[in-house]
Each structure stands twice: as C-alpha cells, then as structure tokens.
C-alpha cells in the first residue's frame, strides 16, 4: 500500500472553454477519511471525476494507487459514487447489485453483505424508483462497496440524508478506513468537516487548505471549519 493513495500534480481541467481546475497539486493519504469540502460549483466533482479517470483533463498527472488514473488496472480498485444515484430505477435493489456484482466478477454473496452495510437489507426486493432519495443514494453507495475496493471516491454521499443516517455513514467510512480503505468524500456542508481525518478545502478550482481539521482551525485561530474557511478566503483576498 503506497503512503499516498492519490497523487495529483499540476492538474488543469477546462470545461466548456472555462478553466475549472488550474495547476492543482494534492495528495490523499492512504487508509484515512479525507474530506473534500467547498461550495457547490468550486470544482469538487471535476476533481473527483479526474481521480476516477472519467474526466478528460487538459494537462497534469493524476496517479491513483501507483497507476495513472483511469487505467485498466484500477477498474476493480476504485469504488465511485456520483452525485446522481447512477443505478437503474426500474430494477429492484437486489437486481441492481447483482448486475454490478456480475460486471465486477464478485460473488453474489457480496450483495447481501453490502446491503447489510448500507442498512437496506429489508429493501432488497423493492424497485429503486420507489425508494426515497436517501435510500437511492445508499443503493448507489452499496454498488461502490462491492468487492471492497481499496479506494472509495464518494461525491456528496450524505446529501439529503437524515442526521442519524449521516452519522451512521460517517462511522462506516471510518470503519472502512480502519480496515485500510482510502475514503475520499466530498461535501458542501462544512459541519461534516469535523468528521474527517484530513481536509482539503476547495474554492474556485483551487485548494486553499490541506491539513487535519484541528490544524486548519488552529492556524486560523477559530473554533469551527466554516470560520476557518472564511478566514482563509479573507486572507487570500486581503491585499486587494
């Protein structure tokens, strides 16, 4: 296991003629829960897509688990949850998972396990389209957990979930990290920052802080990450 699960160097991504990420450098340590936090529209999803290898990039280098992002060797090693649920609404929960299990060539027994993990075992025969938004996104998360990939890239997996469930998921992310999985989670909700081992704060396509939540707050001299974020932005714009 490399010390860094993800290594991004000088990454530039242009979408629709507009630079979304400019000359970005960052590392994601292995076996930890790293939070990618920033307002919506700041480029979080584009960065995550680049790490998964589905984003066409302008220049730079993205290395994931010692392979170039998106390479064939990684197709079983990266579990990816997009903001849209990315599951088939007209199939049942179990049918969705069995299909993806077959594509990944993992045993059908995995289906029962991941449903247990996301607490949807009792919904197995229900059609996904009939589920609530939160349940659908958990089905999507379950697909990403199939085969226990060493890297999980989760784009806002806790949006719209009730607080109890959110807490459950965060403890799941930490359990996975304790077992050696690298978890990279994006969120635009700053209060989720406290739950991460490490934070990447992002704004307008740039990383403005990369440290533990404690260190970020200490440096800004404030008690919460949201205030730290504001202080960092004010610092950056101060000289103007």
């Amino acid at each position, binding site marked *: 296991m490399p010390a860094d699960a993800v290594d991004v160097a000088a990454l530039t991504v242009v*979408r*629709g003629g507009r630079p979304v990420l400019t000359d970005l450098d960052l590392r994601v340590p292995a076996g930890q829960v790293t939070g990618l936090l920033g307002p919506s529209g700041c480029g979080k999803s584009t960065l995550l897509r680049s790490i*998964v*290898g*589905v*984003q*066409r*990039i302008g220049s730079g280098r993205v290395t994931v688990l010692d392979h170039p992002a*998106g390479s*064939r060797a990684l*197709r*079983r090693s*990266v579990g*990816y949850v*997009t903001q*849209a*649920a*990315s*599951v*088939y*609404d*007209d*199939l049942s929960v179990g*049918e969705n998972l069995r*299909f*993806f299990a*077959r*594509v*990944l*060539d993992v045993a059908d027994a995995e289906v029962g396990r991941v449903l247990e993990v996301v607490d949807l075992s009792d919904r197995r025969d229900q*059609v996904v389209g009939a589920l609530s938004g939160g349940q659908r996104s958990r089905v999507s998360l379950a*697909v990403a957990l199939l085969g226990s990939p060493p890297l999980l890239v989760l784009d806002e997996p806790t949006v719209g979930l009730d607080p109890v469930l959110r807490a459950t998921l965060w403890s799941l992310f930490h359990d996975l990290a304790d077992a050696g999985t690298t978890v990279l989670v994006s969120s635009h909700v700053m209060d989720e920052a406290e739950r991460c081992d490490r934070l990447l704060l992002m704004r307008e396509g740039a990383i403005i802080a990369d440290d533990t939540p404690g260190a970020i707050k200490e440096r800004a001299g404030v008690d919460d990450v949201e205030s730290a974020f504001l202080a960092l932005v004010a610092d950056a714009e101060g000289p103007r």
Partner: protein
Amino acid sequence: MTPRITLAVAARVLRQLRRDRRTSAMLLAVPCVLITLLWWMFRDLPADRFDQFGPGLLAMFPFIVMFLVTSVTTLRERSSGTLERLLSMPLGKGDFLGGYAVAFGLVAVLQSVLAVGISVGLLGLEVQGPVWLLTVVAVVDALLGTALGLLVSAFARTEFQAVQFMPAVVIPQILLCGLFVPRAALPDVLGAVSDVLPLSYAMDAMSTLVRTSDTAEVWSDLAAVLAFTMAGLLLGAATLRRRTP
C-alpha cells in the same frame, strides 16, 4: 469483450423490459395490429396490394421500433450516470453494445416471429422463399435499428432530441427504400442516395423473398444490411468514451 459481462448486460436489459409491461406488450402487439390494418385497407382493392406492401412493413417495424427503443434507453444510460459508472468498471465497450444487441435481438426474434406468423398464417401473405428467412431478415433489420439507435443517442442531449432523430434518420430511408416508388424508377440522384441507405437492402431482401424462391440475392442483401449494422455498432462504440469533457 467478456462473455460473462456481455450476457449480464443483456440479461439486465431484458429484465428492465420485462418490468416495463406496457412497453413489452406494445413491442409485440403493435406490429401485429398495424400489419392487420394494412391487410384490411387493401382488402377491397382488385390487385393483391397486400403482397406488395406487406413485406416492406415487415422490414420496417423491427427497424423503427428498435431504433426508438435503443436510442432512448442508451440516452437514459448516458444521462443517469449508469454508463459512466459502468465504464469506470471492467466493462468493455463491446460488452455494452453487444449486451444491448443480444437483448434487443431476442426481442426482435419474438416480434418478428409474431408479425411474420400473422402475415403468412392468418392474412395470407404469399411468400415464395422460405418463411424462416423472412424472420431472419426481420431480426437483422432489428439489429440495424439497434445499431443506428445507439449511434444517434450519442448526438442527442435529451429524450426529445432522440425522438426527433426518428423522422430525420428513419423516414428518408422509408421513402427511398422502394416501398412507394421502385428504386429503379427513382430520379438518378435519389437512386444513388437509396443505394447507400441500409433499409433499401432490407426492403430488397424482403420483396425478393416474397417474389421468388431463389435466395442468392436475399443473402447478398442481408450481408449488406449486416455490414451497415456492424459499421453502426463500430461508430457507436467510438462515441462511448471512458473520459468525457
């Protein structure tokens, strides 16, 4: 391509269709109803026009229906994010396209057996060539529709646009395939256009089968339709990108 994955995709597509009872019922019933309507229209006319137009309809249904179904379903895969997820997994583009082709090919077999069975068995369509070959032509037409549907779905952003490709891509082929004006009697330019449209060959194969028991020409027309289908699938594969802007 991995057979396990191709078959998993095919099984999944068929399961989705089975869930959608209304679509499945319409896929199978509508061609039968329309061919019966055509037979009824010509019933009181002196010459046996049904023998003239029936084969064309048998060639057209599977093509149109599969074109529509495939372009909308693939577009849905693109916009829902499931395609992106699949392409980040160990799935080959061939598995995706092949899976769809296998699933819709099977539906086309069912659809064509029903439509051909009704035309020949109940409505008295006179076929000189072997009836099973009529079904084979219909299935290949369906695969052609699937291939072209996959291809155009890459150029549509919404389901509205996908449906608009039907008149744009399909109707010119229907007009020029020889159903209304024999291909030889078309103005030179239109005749040349007709020669490069796949449905023309499908139509030729059908009408040859009805007219004569000599199948040599049918096979060469069938080969032409298959070649267009392969080209459509290959071009369609080129539009499936693992990395998107």
